[in-house]
């Protein structure tokens, strides 16, 4: 492998300090921004197909340390500017571990590596870390971690093969006669031409808001989601790349074009589709090793360059691939070493790292590689897609490295499905429209179908049963707070049971409508729960509504009982029996749970909406619909926490259903904000000022009322429902929060039980309509 090299190491021994290359300088700057992050640790576990002798391995690795300056290179910052410093040859001590006694040696080695890789390097000391791990039964794994400052993927391949060659020489006693390796630090790379510099300087691009997510500042934490493309599809992709508009100079470039085209199509579909013609940009590394000698040199040569493509609604895979082929040709033509610093790469937030390199063998032994992810990546990059078949498995490996601040786990896990749908689509018909490909996997489709049609999730358990279970689990937890008063779950349930028992005694039973005409109070909550426990259906009656409207509702439903307050009875005209909760004595009624409860198909409540004819229109909701919505909302918004919700909206609004049942069925709290006598209800402003709740369910009109106010530290989530959400408004609110804020837009007609779909607003609009202020750091807007 190592032909005689004209280079000698004499020049490197004279001077041990060298300027950083452009590739190194950009990496060094990136590391400086997050000094404690292992974001540039490039680690692999190589499983070698045989027993490796630690003594010969040590000798082989020592020979590389001696013969190449790359592994001896560190960064010297003493003079104020970073320089490469080549250390004199040093004694390398191989770390040898034996996991053969472990129950699962393979898993133990991986666990060890995954912890080990997270330690950042001290740039001034040593930029590699390696170990040999015995797994028993002639199985050995080699852990190799290098800082990106001295390596890239070609260098990793080169190092594995060189250590392998030297290992074989050590075994055969010929190690001393091995040639020196091409020096790295002293390489004098030519400066880029003005043609290339001007080309990249003129390049303009915009980051893409993947899944409509964007943020000014995010952390360097990433998670790798892996999938592989099976043999059949991998072969078909290679074939297609050579016989489609992706076909270019070489098989590797053709396949790159196809993969890049798929990534563009994916980005388009999950970000800007529907907004007309768009220019998308990704960054992709040029390997920077145009000559054979550079190909054999250990070190970092890759530089990231932007790859741009326009894409429009009428784009087919074929037409896109032709554009990508042009773009990659232009990129390569201008990808001279050192030119990347003139490209606007910092505005690119998606990286495609397509690795055509393949490992050969290690001293005649097979090598299987596993790329160990350090859980970190450049925070500018929201997605890094690594595509390789480093082991020559015949199956393309896809690693989606996704920023943890920007994408929740559930979404991260769906990314491969979305991408693979496009892979299948291009293989099925490259002439089809990109915009018409169905991206959803079966699981996601069924989830969405469940949301879209409000199919029952867990609708067999009614809210009455769920509430009683919650009481058992949270007996002494505070359930309701109203001013200075509060009730625990146990106390609340006892009062509900007394009233329910009383209602039963009065004749309330299954599906009997019972009016509730109360101002917001603890009693209102007790009334709602008691009607349901008694088996009835509650009918909210807004005390502030005109008497005629109230009478209409009472008549229309032939309501037999109305739970109310003695101060409100003059508004309730009709035949209904009025039960003023402040005037009846319930202490002698049983406070234990009733022995029967409503069935899923029974009516739970009736809401009157303003009908289009002018007459109020009643909408009936069954227990199964209510239970379905509440369980779904708990899983979506609460996620195992105990959260406080304010009760501040009229009971007749369906959004109030969320504020009551979601906390009370998940061990959270309802904080009651009573109606005020002022003409304008200022409850919402008080909620924001008092900072006592975690979640607010509200309408966009409500949201407008608190626009400009500073949101407190406790508030975590806003759930919007009922009207169109203007994105500018949501953005403005997100930006007034000091901490990450989740904003959900939930919608659905009252008939569909509160909210059927959570929808997103468009963050592109957001950028356009919010001239000052961006969402606070880490703010997420769920769209």
């Amino acid at each position, binding site marked *: 492998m190592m032909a005689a090299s004209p280079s000698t190491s004499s020049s490197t021994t004279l001077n041990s300090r060298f300027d950083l290359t452009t590739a190194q300088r950009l990496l060094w700057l990136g590391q400086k921004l997050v000094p404690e992050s292992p974001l540039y640790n490039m680690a692999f576990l190589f499983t070698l197909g045989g027993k490796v002798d630690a003594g010969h391995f040590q000798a082989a690795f020592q020979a590389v340390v001696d013969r190449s300056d790359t592994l001896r290179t560190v960064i010297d910052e003493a003079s104020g500017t970073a320089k490469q410093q080549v250390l004199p040859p040093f004694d390398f001590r191989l770390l040898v571990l034996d996991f053969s006694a472990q129950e699962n040696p393979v898993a133990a080695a991986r666990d060890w590596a995954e912890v080990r890789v997270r330690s950042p390097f001290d740039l001034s000391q040593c930029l590699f870390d390696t170990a040999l791990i015995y797994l028993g039964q002639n199985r050995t794994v080699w852990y190799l971690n290098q800082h990106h400052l001295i390596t890239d993927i070609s260098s990793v391949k080169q190092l594995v093969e060189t250590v392998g060659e030297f290992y074989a020489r050590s075994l055969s006693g010929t190690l001393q006669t091995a040639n020196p390796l091409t020096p790295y630090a002293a390489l004098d790379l030519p400066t880029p031409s003005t043609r290339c510099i001007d080309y990249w300087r003129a390049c303009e691009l915009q980051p893409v808001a993947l899944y409509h997510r964007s943020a000014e500042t995010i952390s360097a934490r990433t998670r790798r989601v892996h999938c592989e493309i099976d043999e059949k599809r991998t072969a078909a992709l290679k074939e297609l790349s050579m016989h489609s508009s992706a076909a270019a*100079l*070489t098989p590797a*470039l053709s396949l790159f074009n196809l993969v890049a085209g798929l990534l563009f199509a994916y980005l388009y579909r999950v970000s800007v589709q529907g907004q007309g013609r768009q220019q998308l940009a990704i960054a992709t590394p040029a390997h920077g090793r*145009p*000559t*054979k000698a550079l190909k054999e040199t250990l070190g970092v040569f890759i530089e990231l360059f932007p790859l741009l493509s326009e894409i429009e609604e009428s784009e087919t895979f074929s037409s896109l691939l032709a554009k990508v082929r042009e773009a990659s040709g232009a990129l390569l*033509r201008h*990808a001279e070493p050192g030119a990347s610093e003139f490209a606007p790469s910092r505005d690119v937030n998606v990286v495609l790292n397509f690795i055509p390199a393949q490992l050969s063998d290690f001293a005649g032994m097979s090598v299987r590689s596993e790329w160990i992810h350090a859980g970190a990546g450049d925070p500018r990059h929201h997605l890094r897609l690594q595509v390789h078949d480093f082991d020559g498995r015949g199956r393309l490996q896809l690693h989606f490295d996704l920023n943890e601040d920007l994408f929740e786990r559930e979404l991260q896990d769906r990314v491969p499905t979305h991408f693979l749908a496009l892979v299948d689509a291009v293989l099925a018909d490259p002439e089809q429209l990109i915009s018409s490909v169905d991206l959803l996997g079966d699981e996601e489709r069924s989830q969405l179908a469940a949301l879209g049609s409000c199919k029952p999730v867990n609708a067999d358990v009614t809210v009455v049963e769920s509430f009683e279970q919650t009481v058992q689990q949270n007996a002494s937890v505070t359930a309701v707070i109203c001013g200075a008063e509060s009730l625990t779950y146990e106390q609340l349930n006892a009062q509900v049971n007394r009233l329910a028992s009383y209602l039963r005694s009065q004749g309330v039973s299954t599906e009997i409508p019972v009016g509730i005409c109360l101002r917001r109070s603890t009693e209102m909550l007790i009334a709602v729960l008691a009607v349901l426990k008694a088996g009835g259906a509650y009918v909210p009656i807004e005390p502030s509504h005109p008497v005629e409207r109230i009478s209409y509702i009472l008549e229309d439903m032939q309501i037999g009982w109305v739970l109310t307050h003695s101060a409100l009875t003059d508004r309730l005209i009709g035949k209904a029996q009025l039960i003023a909760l402040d005037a009846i004595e319930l202490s002698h009624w049983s406070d234990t749970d009733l022995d029967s409860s409503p069935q899923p198909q029974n009516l739970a409540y009736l809401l009157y909406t303003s009908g289009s004819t002018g007459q109020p229109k009643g909408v009936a909701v069954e227990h199964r619909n209510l239970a379905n919505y509440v369980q779904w909302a708990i899983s979506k918004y609460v996620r195992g926490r105990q959260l406080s919700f304010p009760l501040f909206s009229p009971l007749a609004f369906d959004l109030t259903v969320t504020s009551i049942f979601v906390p009370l069925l998940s061990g959270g709290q309802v904080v009651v904000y009573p109606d005020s006598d002022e003409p304008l209800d200022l409850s919402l402003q008080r909620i924001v000022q008092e900072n006592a709740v975690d979640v607010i369910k509200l309408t966009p009109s409500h949201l407008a009322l608190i626009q400009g106010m500073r949101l407190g530290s406790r508030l975590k989530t806003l759930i919007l429902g009922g009207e169109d959400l203007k994105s500018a408004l949501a953005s403005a609110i997100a930006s007034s929060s000091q901490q990450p804020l989740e904003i959900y837009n939930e919608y659905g007609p009252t008939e569909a039980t509160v909210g059927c779909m959570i929808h997103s607003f468009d963050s592109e609009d957001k950028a356009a309509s919010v001239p000052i202020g961006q969402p606070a750091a880490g703010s997420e807007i769920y769209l």
Partner: protein
Amino acid sequence: MDNQEILKKFISEDLLNSRQRVEADDDLLGEEIIDSMGVMRLVAFVEETFSCKVPQSDITITNFRTIKAIDTYLAARSL
């Protein structure tokens, strides 16, 4: 030195650093003797040496597969 010899010398010495010899009929691209980045280096060399502009659309497999092909392409350009 004719064009083919000039190209052979550049590819063998500058791109392959004398580690490999290339002949006029060797499939430079299909065998990946030089990769796409190497081709771009070659294009820059051709433009400089033969004082011509090679448009992006001319950088094709047909024109750059072999040294002979490049020679043919250059001859066609000078017609």
